[in-house]
């Protein structure tokens, strides 16, 4: 308890909620960023819904996009979220090698995801799904697909770079059982990317 809090307590003043600390500043900052980012994705998905709802010839997504590859990509991101929390658990137990191993596994999951997305885009472009037109129906179908999945792919790319930095710093021994806050904050970002993909998979591919 700080001196000020002790004085307040002595005078019968109810102590406030645990004050912000340098550790929680980072986490709070990340949550504020993620809230803003979630609104960006939310607006994109709402825009998609409006365009689709008002279109007379919107293609059936499953017929054009297929879902077996993206179902696997979803599985991959879920796995990478698990390796992320395992990495955090490892460093909480002072297992630095475990942290580095799980961070690189998470980065690997992200890289494979990006490679599969590049493959998927290439395939779809080759079969005629353009940014401004396609043979199945409304041209906005391709526009919204590439913008939303591309926006998410950029987040995955950012996450791969972010987690690589965490892995390299972990390798240097920066983190320990008493200093893992940066790992947790990076994990929040990565789980958010996973969470958004869960929604993108449902709304863009399945519905």
């Amino acid at each position, binding site marked *: 308890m700080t001196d000020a809090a002790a004085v307040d307590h002595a005078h019968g003043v109810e102590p406030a909620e645990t004050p912000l600390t340098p550790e929680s500043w980072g986490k709070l900052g990340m949550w504020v960023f*993620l809230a803003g980012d979630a609104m960006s994705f939310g607006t994109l998905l709402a825009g998609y819904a409006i365009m689709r709802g*008002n279109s007379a010839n919107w293609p059936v997504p499953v017929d054009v996009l297929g879902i077996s590859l993206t179902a696997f990509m979803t599985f991959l991101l*879920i796995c990478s979220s698990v390796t992320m929390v395992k990495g955090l658990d490892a460093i909480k137990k002072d297992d630095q090698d475990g942290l580095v191993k799980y961070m690189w596994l998470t980065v690997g999951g992200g890289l494979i995801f990006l490679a599969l997305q590049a493959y998927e885009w290439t395939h779809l472009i080759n079969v005629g799904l353009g940014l401004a037109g396609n043979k199945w129906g409304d041209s906005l179908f391709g526009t919204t697909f590439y913008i939303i999945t591309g926006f998410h792919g950029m987040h995955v790319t950012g996450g791969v770079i972010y987690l690589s930095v965490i892995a390299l710093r972990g390798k240097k021994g920066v983190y320990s059982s008493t*200093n893992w806050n940066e790992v*947790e904050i990076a994990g929040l970002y990565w789980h958010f990317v996973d969470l958004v993909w869960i929604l993108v998979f449902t709304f863009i*591919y399945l*519905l």
Partner: protein
Amino acid sequence: MASDSHAQHDDHHVNYMAIFWWLLALTILEVIAGIPQASPAYPQLLKGALLVVMAVAKAALVGLYFMHLRFEKLTLGFIAMIPLILCVFVVLMVLPDF
């Protein structure tokens, strides 16, 4: 303070593999519900509702357990709820256009 904060976090033990299996099971169910050939003929509205419920359940599992929202202070929960509320608001605002 840092060690206090970390000690608080260490109080909870989440079975992450259980969450993983739930997420995997829900994903498989979603794919089955989403593939026209694999799913029985049922109304489009029911299919949509099922898919949305499963997606929200998966997102909630990730948010509550992987992102530790369930164990965080209420303040962070409120911050996380803001975009959700605004997105519902956006959807409600555009509904009359359909």
